[in-house]
């Protein structure tokens, strides 16, 4: 187990180094000297040198990269070249917003997907099951921003029950927080619900064919009893990993939803920074997103091993 964990951690660190290096090259090296970008081609050499010294873009690139990595680790991401804002508190603030949105979205998805997917599997031979899988199939095909747009059209524009966008932090008023988070979370979660429903269905179908379910029935459990007591737990192993992978993909999917609902999350910050050509901010936000995605993938591997005693011991 420890060996296994150690090899996973080594792999995690290597992935993070390569990924951040790629971000650094893509966003810091290839676009050219940020001093020139900021001050223009006509700037005097002295002004450029002063700018570089101020923003720490002097010295060899490797050193700059290491300094940036060090900043990522210690939580000092520097100040934006464009807005001169401190990036660390800004990003930390935005991460909270996006994390809340994604977690609530996943909650919505799971509450729908686990029962519906299980039923779709159990009823896979009759009309009910076929209908459920057809609906989930269609659901997967709908872009989440379309769901968002339609939700706004109905609940904000037509009915006027909920605001069409904006954000209130939970600390600033719990009721307002819910009014603002509900539509984006449902928009983000509903498409996930369709996707996870399909995973749950195929996992449960797979389990229903397992010999041990038949053994459980032979010792006196009903079909449903066997499915609940032995089936779902086994089906849960692949589903948990899927949930991890999907949370990672929702982090990215949230970029679009935040735009629809004008939610000030990480995605909005990324898009605004791209719009402002604020490359240091883009670099930092992308790095945070990539680190989160990689960490989630790492956790998925870990949880997978923990859930299944066969892997626990074998590793």
């Amino acid at each position, binding site marked *: 187990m420890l*060996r296994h964990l150690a090899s996973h951690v080594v792999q995690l660190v290597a*992935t993070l180094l390569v*990924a951040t290096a790629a*971000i650094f090259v*893509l966003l810091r090296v*290839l*676009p050219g000297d940020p001093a020139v970008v900021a001050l223009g081609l006509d700037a005097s050499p002295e002004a450029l040198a002063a700018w570089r010294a101020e923003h720490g873009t002097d010295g060899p690139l490797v050193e700059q990269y290491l300094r940036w990595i060090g900043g990522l680790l210690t939580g000092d991401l520097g100040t934006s070249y464009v807005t001169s804002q401190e990036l660390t508190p800004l990003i930390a603030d935005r991460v909270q917003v996006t994390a809340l949105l994604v977690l609530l979205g996943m909650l919505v998805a799971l509450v729908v997907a686990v029962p519906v997917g299980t039923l779709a599997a159990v009823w896979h*031979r009759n009309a009910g099951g076929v209908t459920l899988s057809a609906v989930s*199939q269609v659901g*997967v*095909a709908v*872009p*989440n*921003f*379309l769901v968002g*747009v*339609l939700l*706004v*059209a109905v609940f904000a524009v*037509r009915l006027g029950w909920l605001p069409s966008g904006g954000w209130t932090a939970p600390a600033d008023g719990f009721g307002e927080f819910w009014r603002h988070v509900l539509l984006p979370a449902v928009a983000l979660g509903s498409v996930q619900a369709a*996707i996870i429903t399909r995973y749950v*269905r*195929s996992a449960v179908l797979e389990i229903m064919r397992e*010999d*041990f379910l038949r*053994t459980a029935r*032979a*010792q*006196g459990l009903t079909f*449903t009893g066997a499915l609940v007591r032995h089936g779902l*737990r*086994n089906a849960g192993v*692949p589903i948990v990993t*899927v949930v991890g*992978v*999907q949370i*990672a*993909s*929702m982090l*990215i*999917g949230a*970029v*679009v939803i935040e*735009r*629809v609902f004008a939610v000030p999350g990480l995605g909005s910050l*990324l898009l605004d*920074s*791209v719009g402002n*050509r604020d*490359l240091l901010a883009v670099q930092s936000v*992308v790095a945070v997103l*990539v680190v989160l*995605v*990689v960490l989630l*993938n790492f956790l998925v591997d870990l949880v*997978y091993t923990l859930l*299944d*005693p*066969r892997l626990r*011991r074998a590793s």
Partner: protein
Amino acid sequence: MTAQDPVAGAPGAVAALPVATGRRTPWAHPQLLLGAVLVGLVLLTALVSLVWTPFDPEHAGAERLLPPGPEHLLGTDRFGRDVLSQVMAGAQITLLVGVVAVGIAAVVGVPVGVLAGMLQGAGRRRPATLIMRASDILLAFPGLLLAIVLGAVYGAGTLTAMIALGIGSIPAFARVARGGTLQVVRSDYVLAARAANRPELAVAVRHVLPNIAGTVLVQCSVNFAIAVLAEAGLSFLGLGTAPPTPSWGRMLQESQQFLGVADHLAVVPGVAIAVAVLGFNLLGDGLRDVLDPRLAGVAAERADAAARAERVPGPDPRTVTPRDAAATPPALEVRDLDVRTHGGRALLSGVSVRVAPGERVGLIGESGSGKTMTALAALGLLPDGVTASGHVGLAGVPGNLLERGERELAALRGRDVSMVFQEPMTALDPLVRVGRQVAETMTLHGTGRAAARARAAALLAEVGLPDDAARRYPHELSGGQRQRVVLAMALANDPAVLVADEPTTALDVTVQRQVLDLMLRLAGERGAGLLFITHDLAVVSQVCERVVVLLDGVVVEEGPVAEVFARPRHAYTRRLLAASALEPRATTAEPAGPTAAEHAEAVVRVEDVTRTYAGRGRAVQALRGVSLEVRPGQRFGLVGESGSGKSTLLRIVAGLDEATSGRVVTAGVDLSPGARGRRGAPPLGDVRRALQVVFQDPYGSLDPRMTVGDIVAEPLLNPANVREGGPATASARRAAVREMLAAVGLPANAADRYPHQFSGGQRQRIAIARALVCRPRVLVADEPVSALDVSVRRQVLDLLTRLADEHDLTLLLVSHDLGVVRHVCDHVAVMHDGLVVEQGPTAQVYDDPRDAYTRRLREATPRLLVG
């Protein structure tokens, strides 16, 4: 975007799908059809829009925000542009982005995955892992994020989006290709191609690519859908296709301002995106269904059944009367049981079986005869898609079990009647400790929790498991131990009837003996009636008092074992008995002195060979110093149980694996470790021309996508395999294949058919034909009959013997079955725990074993006791 495919995208859920070449029309797959129609619709729209749209999609008109009407069928947008024309033109961008993104991902990802898979298959794990790790780093950059980043640096646009989405999908393709390749590379048919001396590249091109093509196609379709969604998302964010080129995502984004005023502006592009994505997803799912290997299995089963039916004459089975009328009320009574599929195919017709209290009844028949179906029907465990009619009665339970609901049946199962299954490795819940699983059987039927736990521990001790067994997980127990756990569960509530479905078939011979003895003792102590299902007549003759013979869902004969086996009435029973009793090979009187064969140079010489596998954490010694010699013309048998090292030895002798130390010479070629050099320098070709292999599993050793003719001809494609004057041209090869197929007793038209159209026995004949087409001197057969039914087993063994005589072959037969070896071989070596414990002439080793293990093996081997 976030859409991922439930199967292809799930970690570790990657599978190569051999194409079922069954003649199924696409109409049988509505998903595929609907998907194809939707995709075709998008494609057609894009094509039409290239030459015609109702209006110029980029032309701003005076009439703005018009609702759908006669002139503008889908209305106009805020600039007065025709929405229908825009949607039509938008299909172009959608398809373009999808094609380029999927193209990039497939062109890079598939070769990477195939390379990694082939390296890993060749045992080079380190480079394989490195390649996959490198590809997996891209997982950190989802396509949408990469597109935003590249857009920020190089400017957003269609090209950036396509490239970014393509790069983001590379790992998905690499994973799918690697998984599929690994599955193909580990299959026996690739091993057979290697044994036939085919170069790695030829293996990749002829076997791997065609067999993973289906899976990759599915992935293409799924990723196309992902790309369409992502492109729409990017355009929605203003980071995709630049205006004024029409794009569905941007149309949606622009519609946002007019919600409530002009909803059609949002609905129309939304529906277009959904239709395209749905189409590609359905197409992917449909393709996966069509390529499902399970369909090929059904075809093979039918071929097996047909093969049996052809050969069996006999009286009308319905008229068979039992020889003994049971006087006591039965513990289990199955009467006139019919089981049919919903399609109307009869699986069982009028099956009647009685088990008296404490009686042991054997239910015998070959695969597909309906033995298991009978047992499942008796317990109400029939699978979906079949229905039973007739009567099933249980002592002390009034009425017909077939008419009871699941809840009532569940209350009976495990208490009044219980069951032990064939496959112990999968019969237990892998996530629950075995003690709890045994205890659950009792708590379900009313025993208190603490009492059940104590009793479970006692039961596990009673079935001979170590003290700590209750706290172990199933994977921590061996197959035999797991079967003991299942037995403990089955007997926990002292049922009146125990149904055992091939309970020892998956176990080694010596373990089988122990489990059988245990089962008989425990059932006897409890006075439980036993319905014992098996294909093995020898086991029945030792276990049961009465026997029921089943053929294709019909009882053809029944009666006391001694009587039925001594005087079988039905032709099928006679044939089954004749096939089961493998008489020893007729030994030619051996001269006292050294024979001519013993003077000749050995064809295979193995001296003090070891083989150690580097396992995780600890090394596994498969061979611990094995020496033996096979001389020309010998029929050499290698006997041992699983884990004895016999298959490892075989692979080393055939040049498919390398020894860790010792000396190996096959057909005059030195295969000793080190002698092979770095790049297989010694002429492995010489070995493979001289020695060919027939593998165990006739279902896995033939490439499902090649015709039988191509399969048999494959070894001839390597010129090094062809003897001088042998078939060198295509027509000569075809003639050689025809000749070989005739020699193994297959019709000439077999060459044009596919493996799945043949029964197991016929497939093994095909494998033998492939092995002999190069006219080798040595034929190695690895458990050639262990996957076959009894009646076919004998035919294949006799064919091997005959061909060995006719072609002047040396035969090296590997088997777990002492009886099979005794039937075929004149010389035998017994392996145990990586060592040869005894060897000598078969008759001597069998009749007068010197080693304790050989004695144990011989005693454990069930013999057919005929009255």
